Structure formats: structure tokens, C-alpha cells
């Protein structure tokens, strides 16, 4: 009896102590790599860079929010959607307008992802990552280009990886432009001219040059802009497509020499990507029965601008058909003609944007499914900088630098591709510097409409204000077109800049004061 008691005691003790007194207090997350083991190879840096690129295709960025924001703020776009979009387009936003808020967070996120690559790369002795660092610098510069234009140059100065407690200072006037130029200059030195066919879509030297030119232009520094633009044009790396439309057809990436920088969406990718991605990219001139609405529509001014002259053959400017869906379209929108839309939808505007619309994907779904759109299988690429834009910028720089005659030539290159007469033919004479300045405003609209460039243009021209509500005269033809009436609400002293998001000011008082008027 006694023996068995002690045996069982012993047994219990042995079980008790041995069972699992070996729990390990060091546990490593089995689901992820950790920072300690990362950033050690060239491949790691490449993946980090792709991580930064990845953000470009999110819904808060080029998959929707940016073009939505920029279109509504320009004189070519408007909205049929009440609330924040309407308030943005009519300059009646309050501090909480989501479009004002989102842009800040999105571009600073892109900056943060990029600095993971830049800062770790510059402190690393791994060879062969200079180009990768250069690409990341371009992404930072692209972010600042947008942020300065939106929020002014008193934004947060970020030039490295941020920790939780970092509260970056407010940049001095002009400082952000200089910093952006520096980043691009450094990038230009290390970026390749082109990539292999499997790496197509990465940032090239030409892209950095183009962005640097835009940075100079935006500061009205036409001398510096002219220099770099002539270098870019002279490189012969880029040329116009023979066909204007082919820039905007599905997945035309192969051999498109006109593209300088674009966002490469995954065509027919997984639902959670393409779903989000084209949320704002299925616009119509009015609400329809199958669940497509009119978040972004084109203004009448945009439409009228195409109608001031015909092409060489006496037809309507062929660019209209690709740029805007309207009464003049021979195309269909989601399988329906303009006549159908007019009689079946509540038309908000006489035209809607067409270039980057997910027309084909939507149509496929309507044909396949329940008769309503299900937000998937999109993924049309989106061009951010193309050669025609560069040619027109060069013309603008030349004109501003007093080389008006020479400027005509570059405008004519762009016009010729669209089967339009030379400017001199249309106008009956060469235009003066002042006339050409106005004509370029028109030329840029009809060439680049719906490419969310216009807002930058208006800012550069010093036109971003209530005067946009006034009529516009096209110098070459003498047409007078009513411009965007929503600008009549423009609050001078306030709407020039977005407000810095309230939460950001709460967390980082270094950014005070708030932008004027807010």
C-alpha cells in the first residue's frame, strides 16, 4: 500500500515537472519576415521598391481618388454626386472634406515606403541598387510635386524613415521645390534609359527628366525647364504614337513610345485589387439603372473646346471621340450609345470622361452577369506622363522664353498626329507670344483632357481662381467659350490651397499655422 502511494507520488511529480516546463519564451512570428532579417540582399531592395510602387495602384491613389480629386478641381470636370465631391467641385468644402484629407495621407505613405528603400539603400554596401534608390527618389519627388501643388510649400519636410515620435517640421517657403529638384537630379544620374520587356513600367531616366521639367515649369522657371525638356526631346527615346487613340486602348504597353510614366494595373487581376482600383473609373454622364453613376463628368467647356475647329478633312477633332463620351461619339459607353444614355439616364452633363474608363470590363460584366456591375476584372493602365504633354510643355517654355515661332513647331507636331491643321493655317497667321500663351491653354485641353493634368496647368498659369468662371477665347479661331461656372464660388484667400488635415495638425503642431482661410 505504502509503496504504491509513493510510486504514484513520484509518477505525478515526474509528470508534473516534465510535461512541458519547456515552454519557450522567445516566439517568432511565423507568418511574416521581420525587419531584422530583411534589407540584406538586392532582391530585398527590389521587393521594397515594388512595395512602394504597389501603393500607386491603391484606391486612395491612382486607382481612383487622385484623378477624381484633380478632375473635379479643374475647369474640365464636374460631378453629379452630392456631398464631398460636390463641395470640392464647387469650392464649398469644409475642413473634413475627404478629398482634402486623403491626398495628404496617400502621398506621405508613398514617401514613407520610398524612404525605406532610399535610407536603407544609402546606408548599405550592397552593390547594384543605385537604380532602385533612384526610382524610389522619383516616387518621393512625384509625391512632393503633388503635395506642394495641393497644400502649398509649407508642408511637412520628410527626408528619411519616420519613427512614431517624429514630428517633422514645416518646410520653409521654396524649400520643398529645391528638395524635389535635388531628388530628381540625383535620380536622373542613376536611372537607366529603359528596361527589359519584363521590367517595363519601372521609372526611367526620361521619367525623372520629365518630372523635373514639370517641377521647373510649376515654379515658372522656364529657362531651366526649356533646358531639360530639350534634353529629353533630343534623347530620341520617346515619340508620338501614330494613332492618338491607341494610347488609351486596353493594355497597350508593348512598344508604346509615347508613354514616359504610367501606372501599370494588373489586368483582370484578383478581385480585391481591381475592385478597389476602378471604383472611380466607371463614370457616366448620368445615373443609370445598372449601378453606374456620375461621380466625374466633363464640363461643357471641355466639350465645346473640341468643337472650335475641324481636322484636315473637315471632320470633328478626332481626339474628342476618345476623350469624351458625348453626342458626338461614335463609341458606346458600357454597350449603350449616347442616345440611349440621354433617354435612359438622368444626364448630369453633356459629356463624361472616356479615356481611362473601364468600359470593356464593365461591358463584359453586364453581358455575363445579373445586369448590374460587379466591380471586378478591371485594370486598365493609366498614363501619368506622356510625350505629347512634354512637347506641349516645351512649346510653352519656348514661348515664355520669347521663342514663340519655334514654339509653334512643337504644337504642330502634336496637332499633326491628330490630323489637325498647323496652327498657322487655322489662325491664318503665326500667333503672338500672348496669343500663343492662350492658345496653349486650349491645345493642352484638347490633347490632354481627362488625364488629370489640368489642375496643375491652372495653378501654373496663375489662373486657379474665380476668373475661371469667365469666358475663354481661343485665339486661333476666335471662338468664345463659356468656362467653368463652379469657379464662381471660389473663395479667394482660402481655396488656393487645401487645408492640412485637422488630425495631422493635432498630432504635429510643428505644421501650424494652418493654410490661409481654413
Amino acid at each position, binding site marked *: 500500500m505504502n509503496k504504491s*502511494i509513493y510510486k*504514484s*507520488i513520484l509518477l*505525478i*511529480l515526474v*509528470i*508534473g515537472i516534465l510535461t*512541458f*516546463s519547456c*515552454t519557450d*519564451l*522567445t*516566439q*517568432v*512570428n511565423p507568418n*511574416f*519576415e521581420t*525587419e531584422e532579417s*530583411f534589407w540584406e540582399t538586392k532582391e530585398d531592395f527590389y*521587393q521594397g521598391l*515594388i*512595395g*512602394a*510602387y*504597389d501603393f500607386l495602384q491603391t484606391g*486612395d491613389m491612382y486607382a481612383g481618388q487622385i484623378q477624381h480629386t484633380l478632375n473635379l478641381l479643374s475647369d474640365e470636370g464636374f460631378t453629379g454626386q452630392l456631398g*464631398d465631391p460636390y463641395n470640392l467641385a464647387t469650392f464649398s468644402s*469644409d*475642413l*473634413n472634406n475627404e478629398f482634402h*484629407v486623403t491626398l495628404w*495621407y496617400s502621398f*506621405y*505613405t508613398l514617401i*514613407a*515606403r520610398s524612404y525605406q528603400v532610399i535610407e536603407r539603400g544609402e546606408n548599405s554596401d550592397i552593390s547594384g541598387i543605385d537604380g532602385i534608390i533612384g526610382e524610389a527618389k522619383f516616387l518621393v519627388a512625384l509625391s512632393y510635386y503633388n503635395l506642394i501643388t495641393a497644400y502649398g510649400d509649407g508642408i*511637412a519636410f520628410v527626408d528619411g524613415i*519616420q519613427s512614431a*515620435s*517624429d514630428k*517633422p517640421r514645416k518646410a520653409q517657403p521654396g524649400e520643398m521645390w529645391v528638395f524635389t529638384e535635388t531628388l530628381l537630379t540625383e535620380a536622373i544620374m542613376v536611372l537607366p534609359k529603359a528596361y527589359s520587356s*519584363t521590367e*517595363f*513600367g519601372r521609372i526611367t531616366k526620361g521619367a525623372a527628366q520629365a518630372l523635373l521639367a514639370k517641377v521647373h515649369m510649376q515654379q515658372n522657371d522656364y529657362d531651366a525647364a526649356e533646358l531639360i525638356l530639350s534634353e529629353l526631346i533630343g534623347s530620341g527615346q520617346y515619340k508620338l504614337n501614330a494613332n492618338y487613340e491607341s494610347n488609351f486602348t486596353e493594355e497597350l504597353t508593348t512598344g508604346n513610345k509615347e508613354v514616359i510614366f504610367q501606372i*501599370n494595373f*494588373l489586368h*483582370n487581376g484578383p*478581385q480585391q*485589387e481591381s475592385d478597389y482600383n476602378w471604383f472611380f473609373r466607371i463614370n457616366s454622364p448620368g*445615373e443609370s439603372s*445598372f449601378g453606374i453613376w456620375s461621380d466625374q463628368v466633363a464640363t461643357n467647356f471641355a466639350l465645346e473646346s473640341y468643337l472650335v475647329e475641324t481636322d484636315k478633312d473637315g471632320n470633328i477633332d478626332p481626339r474628342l471621340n476618345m476623350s469624351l463620351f458625348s453626342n458626338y461619339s461614335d463609341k458606346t459607353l458600357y454597350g449603350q450609345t449616347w442616345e440611349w444614355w440621354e433617354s435612359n439616364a438622368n444626364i448630369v452633363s453633356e459629356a463624361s470622361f472616356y479615356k481611362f474608363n473601364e468600359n470593356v470590363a464593365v461591358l463584359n460584366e453586364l453581358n455575363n*452577369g*445579373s*445586369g448590374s456591375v*460587379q466591380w*471586378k476584372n478591371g485594370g486598365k493602365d493609366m498614363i501619368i506622363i506622356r510625350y505629347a504633354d512634354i512637347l506641349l510643355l516645351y512649346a510653352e517654355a519656348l514661348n515664355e522664353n520669347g521663342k514663340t515661332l519655334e514654339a509653334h513647331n512643337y504644337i504642330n507636331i502634336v496637332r499633326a498626329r491628330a490630323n489637325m491643321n498647323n496652327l498657322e493655317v487655322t489662325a491664318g497667321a503665326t500667333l503672338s507670344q500672348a496669343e500663343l500663351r492662350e492658345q496653349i491653354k486650349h491645345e493642352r485641353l484638347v490633347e490632354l483632357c481627362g488625364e488629370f493634368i489640368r489642375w496643375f496647368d491652372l495653378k501654373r498659369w496663375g489662373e486657379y481662381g474665380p476668373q475661371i468662371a469667365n469666358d475663354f477665347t481661343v485665339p486661333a479661331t476666335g471662338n468664345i467659350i463659356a468656362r467653368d461656372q463652379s469657379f464662381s464660388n471660389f473663395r479667394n484667400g482660402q481655396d488656393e490651397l487645401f487645408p492640412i488635415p*485637422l*488630425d495631422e495638425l*493635432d*498630432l504635429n503642431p510643428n505644421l501650424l499655422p494652418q493654410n490661409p482661410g481654413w
Partner: protein
Amino acid sequence: MKIYQKATLVILFGMFCSVKANAQYTINGKVTDESQEVLPGANIKVKGTSSGTATNREGLFQLNVMSLSDTLIVSYLGFQTQEIPINGRTSIDIIMPVSSISGEEVVVVGYGSQRKKDLTGAVGIVEMEELAKSLSTNVTDRLQGRIPGVTVSKTGEPGSLGDITIRGVSFFGDNNPLFVIDGIPTEDSPNINPTDIESIQILKDASSSAIYGSRAANGVVVITTKKGNADKMSVSFESQAGIQQFSKKLDVVNTAEFARIHNAAYDNAGLPRRNWSDDLTRGVDTDWQKAVFDDAASFRENNISISSGSEKSKVYLNLNNTDQNGTINKTRFQRVGVRLNTEFDLNDKIIVGQNLAVSKTRQIGQQYLDGQGVIYNTLMMFPTIPVYDPTTISGYGHGSIDDAETYQFNPVGVREMFNSYQDHTKIMGNIFTDVQLLKNLEYKFNFGADIDMGAARNFQRGGQIRTEIPHLSGLEENSAEDLMLVIENRLTYSNSINNHQFSVMATHTEQQFDFKQNGISINGGFDSDDPFFQISSTTASPENISTYGNQQTSTIRSFLGRLTYNFSDKYLLTANVRRDGSSKFPEKNRWGTFPSVSAGWNINEESFFNVPFITRLKLRAGYGVVGNASIGNYAYQTLIASSSAGGTNYNLGYGDRSVIGAIRENLVNDDLKWETLKETNLGLDLVMFDGKLEFIGDYYFGDLEDLLVAAPVPGTTGEGIGGTTIINVATMERSGWEFLVVFRELKKSIKYDITANLFHTENKVTSLPLGNLFGEYSITTVGSPIGQIYTLGYQGIYKEAAELNEYTVINRIPYIGDAKYQDANEDGNISEGDDRVIVGDPNPDLEYGLNLNAYWKNFELSVFFQGVHGRDIFNGVRYDMDTSPLTTYSGVYDPYIDGSGSDPRPTADFGSPNNIASSLYVEDGSYLRLKNLRVGYKVPWNNIGELTLFAVGQNLLTFTGYSGMDPEFESGILAPGVDDGGGFPNVRIYNLGLNFSF
């Protein structure tokens, strides 16, 4: 050893007697209380047998026994159970002492137990009989209002578990206490059958909870399940059924009133009216609450328990099933559970035993869409929209931009097109052994496991049930497994030398938590009307399918000890220390030490003390340091997330080539450590008039340090909108008082007891180095408790033209009827950035519970009230309704239209200052609620068994000035005062039941 011999003798004697058949003796007697009042219905049993009886109306009994050496066990509610050896007598008068005054009850305090009168900390002892009257299906909800200092916030959703906070919300992350069930610590709220619970003790203060160290700062709830009854076999069967309904319908406008306001809103904004508001000839006037709510949802619960045992073995077996339908159709909670607890004395030195509970639950849930529940949509939907509309794609009424622009889902459509359920199979159990190693040295070994296998499924038919936006068909399946193992080795040495009693306990324990889950979802791509199908490669094309999964492990290793010392029952001392190592923290901060000490003085034991009406008087004082860790596993590790298409990736190349990318997953702090609470507790226990009046009071104060805060970080960190990082930065003070008073009258023919508890908790943030924390309409700032309501100050509407230029919202010209706000910084302009002020405090001044039990003859009545006083609520539902043209309006909204009305003008202009959150929506959230009313009748069937019939009502009456659906709601920690309408209001229940035991 002696006891053992005696018991053996009794058993042997009993066996001998039974051989000598029919040799019976009759015993007569009377049972009274100490004041000679008779006690009818007192139970008398013969120890070790199944024979017994009960007293009649005169308190008399007669009982046959086999031997005059037997022992009688006499029990009566509210009195101490007595063991009376017959000692050869045939006539025995028994006097029952009131139970509450003895203090001999043993209370489980974690890694051991103490006599109630030896307690030195603040330990709340739950009256299980009261808890058993509640109709809540889980134990956490039943605790509401029962123990001072314990707050339960809960909803009426079937199967949901209420959140318990002990002594207020003190942490920015996890505020749930640690639950310890039969020695197994578990961090989740326990979803165990309340019927199985023998006792619950709540360790409230740091000096008593410190034995649980790093996880104790939110208090510890120690639950012990039932053991078998050593005396005789008993079977108890309880069954009840009833109906439930929401206790309130929210007052919202009908179509006529809606149209009046809605039209004015569009007129005021200069926008065209919406067709269905402008033209009411369609005659639609939908009462959405009527369409969605079920006023007679059924509730059923059955329990059968068998308890049996002998001197050497005890067995408890329970079988339970619960079936509760929700007051929204298609929500439901079902549970089937079984428990088996056994204990065996192998010999006089070794006890082995086991507890095992297996249950299966299914919670059919409130379906969520875009984060909004059915209830929110029900409240917000326009009355101009019909429930069903055959002209729409899916047949459910919804608006369009021109007719009725609202983006709420048709809630009936949600209910009928969306389905989700969650199953859990839970196995919780332990095996243990107690070994008497030496005379005073006991070894205990405990090995426990808690396994939870979960499976969830959500599915929906594709279609369209709201303005403009169709939804996809979808299906998601998820399975998860939680496995927790714990091992414990405990040595306890106890001895008494003269008047010095002491014990020393030392324990080693380790715990490991493993979690894994995986899931698959399909979004779109199938048209089937029948949602019941399996995921397979033929159901959907690959680009619509996504899968996910992860696994986690965490571990804790601990060493702990306790010393108790008792001198003559006068002076008491308890000291605890625990050292915990946790895998949640980086190596440099991995180990923490948590000490505590407390002392008590039983003044009534002193010879100088001679106050006749004071039966017991004890002073207590304690101090302790305890920890908390409201963070996930691996929180200190910076992770790199990389994935291909569908996640972090980018498309490169002429073809479509998804390239894998990598990003920093989280912004972490690699210096994370424990949060700590350092608390002093002072207590007083007082029993007067031989137990008629009992008082327990506690006062406490202390500091919370190194609080983990999910601190918002600037957007410049790259964390995006609402990005945060967790960091040990904040400090807080906490103090409060709580008391419990019991008054008992057990000596009259109507017997009753009244228990009242009242408490106040005060938390104040003392340091927030990273700046204020913001929740929905709320701010947490230094000098105030967590989550003050923070909006513009509303000052009525502009009534006269002369007032119009007093203050203006920047760039807005006010009109008569517009909202006027306080210019807090007196700069002449109103803006949300500069002029928000604290407009309400959601922390109650007082919380209380009041319970009455009364017994008269065979009737028993129990009434339980619970309430809070002095607390503000931001009525987010009313705010959403009355400030947007995209939702309906509340019935209390009286907008300024055509020269009359006292609330701000309606406007469809989203930028209008009238639509800004302000103190207009802050309401008094005090309430008093009749939580439970129960009437029972004990059928006089004394010789066969006991049958009680009862009727119970829950949440029958609510007294409150709050205009929302329910002043009780669950909320976010940083916005505790904001009722955002996402929750499921508490329900009223009417039940009938019976309890039969023999």
C-alpha cells in the same frame, strides 16, 4: 487521520446495520432559528444515505434512521448548514444560526483558498442563488449589478458575451478581467453554462489579484464549478421558456413628417426635392422597426444535473441546452453542453479528480454590411421606401438619387439575403491531484486544457438593396483553433503553533497558447439563388477566390508564492509575489515581478471590544503591484509583409506579370513592457445584530503606469489615415469607493433580505506625452477620465436678425434657424478645429444595484434593480438622423421650418454648420432598470422531491431620460459615451419555468 478512521467506522457500522435489516429508529424534532422562530420546509438528511425529510409548518419533523449513531444534515436557505450527530437521541431540537455571520465559508482566492473571515483584500463574493435567477445565457451578463465595483456592458444579441470591467476602464486596450475556471486562467470571457458554477469570487484590488501577476490589473474572476454531492444522489431538472422583445421602439418620423423636413432640407440647400418626399401620392409609409423587429422571439433553456457520491468519490454531471431566438429574425443562439466533474480519494493521502466540459454553440449573427448592422439600417431607412418592391432587381424596396437618396441597405433585404453563423466546439478540462506529502505539506498538480474549435460561415446572394449600389454574391468560410495548455505544480505548507497559524505556498506554472486559422472567401462570380453550396473550383473562377491563414503562439512562465499568517484570528497578514515571463515582450523587458501585501484586524476578537450589537468588525488594508498587457503577440517585432497579386505587388512587363513587393507591416516600438497598477485598498467589514445587517466597504486609490496606448501617429510616418503605434507612455490615477449593505429579516413569517451595492470609480489621465487621444466625438486628455465627449458647444438657434453676426462658422453666413455655437477660443469665428470643448462625461457618478428577496410560506419573490447615475451619452443615432438628408429623422427633432421649430434648420448641404456634431446631441444617460423580477412557488411535495414553479421577467422597466433605444450599449474604449447605433439593444424577456429536484 482521525477523521478518516471515524468515517471508516461510520461506513463499517452502516454496512453492519444494513445487514441487520429493519432495525429502524424514529427521530422527532423541531427546527428553529436562534430566536426560536420555527423554520418550515427545512431539509433534514441522514449523512451518507439518501433518506431525508423536511419540516412542516410548525417546524417539526419525523425521520426514520438505521442507527442512532448517524449524523443529520440540516439545511435551510440563509442559514448555516448544520451537521448534528444523533448520539443516541430520539428527540432533537435544532437551532439554525444565520449563515452570514459565521465567516467560516471557504473562499477560493487563487492558488488556494481562505476562510471568508481571514480575507484581507477586496474580494467580491457572488451570491450564486441570485445569479441563478437571471435569464442571461452567460455568466458575465449575470454579474451585472451584483458586486460593487463590477460593471458589465452588454447587448441583447443572442450569444454575445458582455464586457466586464472591474473598477472602471483603466487601460486603453484590454479591460477584461482574467477569468480563472477551476484553476485554468483564460483571457476570454467564459462561455460556460452558468448552472455548472458552484462559486464565483472576484479579486478586485491589487493586493488580492497580485497572485495572478502580469494579467491581474483588470481584476480576476475566479470561477469554481460544481462538485458531486458526497451525501446522496440528487437529480435536478430545470426548464424554462418564454418570449423576448426589444424594450423600446425608437421614435422616428412617419412619411408625412419626414417629407415635411426632407423637402425643407433640399429647399434650404437650393437643390431639387426628392420625388418620393415631394409627392406623397404613392402612399408608402413604412414602419421599418415593425418590419424588422420580432416582438415575440422565443427563448428556451433546459438543464439536468445529477450529483452523486460517497465518502470517497464525487460525481457531478450536467446536460444543458439553450435556444434563444433574437428579436431580429434569423439571429439565434444555440448551445448544447455537457459537464462531468469527478473526484476520487485514492487513499487517505491522495485525491485525484477531473473536470471536463464540452459544448457546442452556434451563433447565428446579426449580418453586417459595410460595418453597419441591420438595426442601424432599420433606424435610418426612409419611411417613403417600401419594404418590398417587385420592380427592383432583388425585389426589395430601395431608393434612387432622384426619388429617395439614401445609401442605407434595406434591412429586410439584408436579413433575407445575408446569412452568417459561427460555431464553436469547446472542450475545457483539467486533471488534478492533491497529495498529502507530509503532515502539513500538500502537493497539488494541475494540468488543464482549453480548446476552442471555431467555424464561421458568411454567405450572401448578389443583388441590389440600396440606392445605386448593387452588391456581389459572396461566401466566406473560416475555421480557427485555439489551444491552451496549462501546467501547475503547487506546494502548500500550513501549520499552527499555539495561536500562530500560517501557511506558505509556492507554485510553478506555465501556459502556452496556440492559435491558428484559415479561411477562404469568394466575392462575386456566381448567380445561384440558393446560397447553400460548397466552395470549390467549380463554384467560382480563381480570380474571385482568396484565401488566408495565420498562426500564433504565446507563452507565459511563472513562479509565485504566498504567505498567510493569522494570530488568534485577530491579526491577519497575506503576502503574495509573482514573477511572470511572457513571450509578448522583448527579451530585455520579458520578466516582471508583482508583489503585494495586505493585513486585517478582526477587532471583535479583541478582549477589550465589547459592543453588543456588533457581531463582527474587521479592518483591512492592502497594497499591490499588478500588470496588464493589452497587446497582441509579437507586438514588438517589426514585420515585413510581402505578397503577390492581391496584396503588396506591382505589375511589370509587357504582359501581366505580378511582381512580389514587401513593405513594413507595422510601426512598432521594440521597448514594449507591462502596464502596471499600484494600488492601495482600505476596507471595512461589519456585521451587526447577529447578522441582520452586514456592511462591506472599500476605498482604493492608486496609479496606473506605463499604459500602452495605440497612439495615433502623423500621416508623415506613412501609416495612413488613422495610423497608430503602441507605446507605453500614459499614466493615470484611479480611485473609488464601493460598498455593499445587506439587511436580513429571517425570523418572521415573511422572511426577506435586501442587498444594496453602490460604487463610484474615478479615473484621471495624468500624462499623455504623445498628445491627446481621439475617439468618435471624444477626447482623452490630461486631467480627465478616458473618453470625454468633445464637440462644439450648441447654444440654440439664431432667432433674430440682430444675432446673425455674433459668431459665424468660417465663410458661412447664418440664416435664422441655423445652429449657434459657442466660440470657445473667442476669436470671432467658429471652427471645428479650434472651438470643440468637452461637453459631457460618460463616466457615471454612481453605479448601483438593489436586490430584494422575500419568502412567505411557499412563495418566493425576488426583485433586482440596477442603475447608473450621472453620466452623459452622445446620441450618435439622433445625430446621424437629424443632420443628414440621407437618413430619416428622429421623432424628437423639431427643426426650424417656416418660422417655427426649436432645432436647427434641416439642410441637404453637407457642408452646412447645422450638420456639425455638437452638444445638442448630448443627453443624460442615467437609468434605473428593473433587471429581474421573479416569483416562485414551491409545491409542497416534500417527501418525493422539490418542485418550484416560477415566472421571471428581465428588463421589465427602465427609467431614463435618454431618447435612444437603450442607455446600455457597448462602445469603444476611447469613445465610451458615444452610442453609435451599431449595437443590439437589450431585450425584455418573459419566462415561465420549473425546477424539480429529488
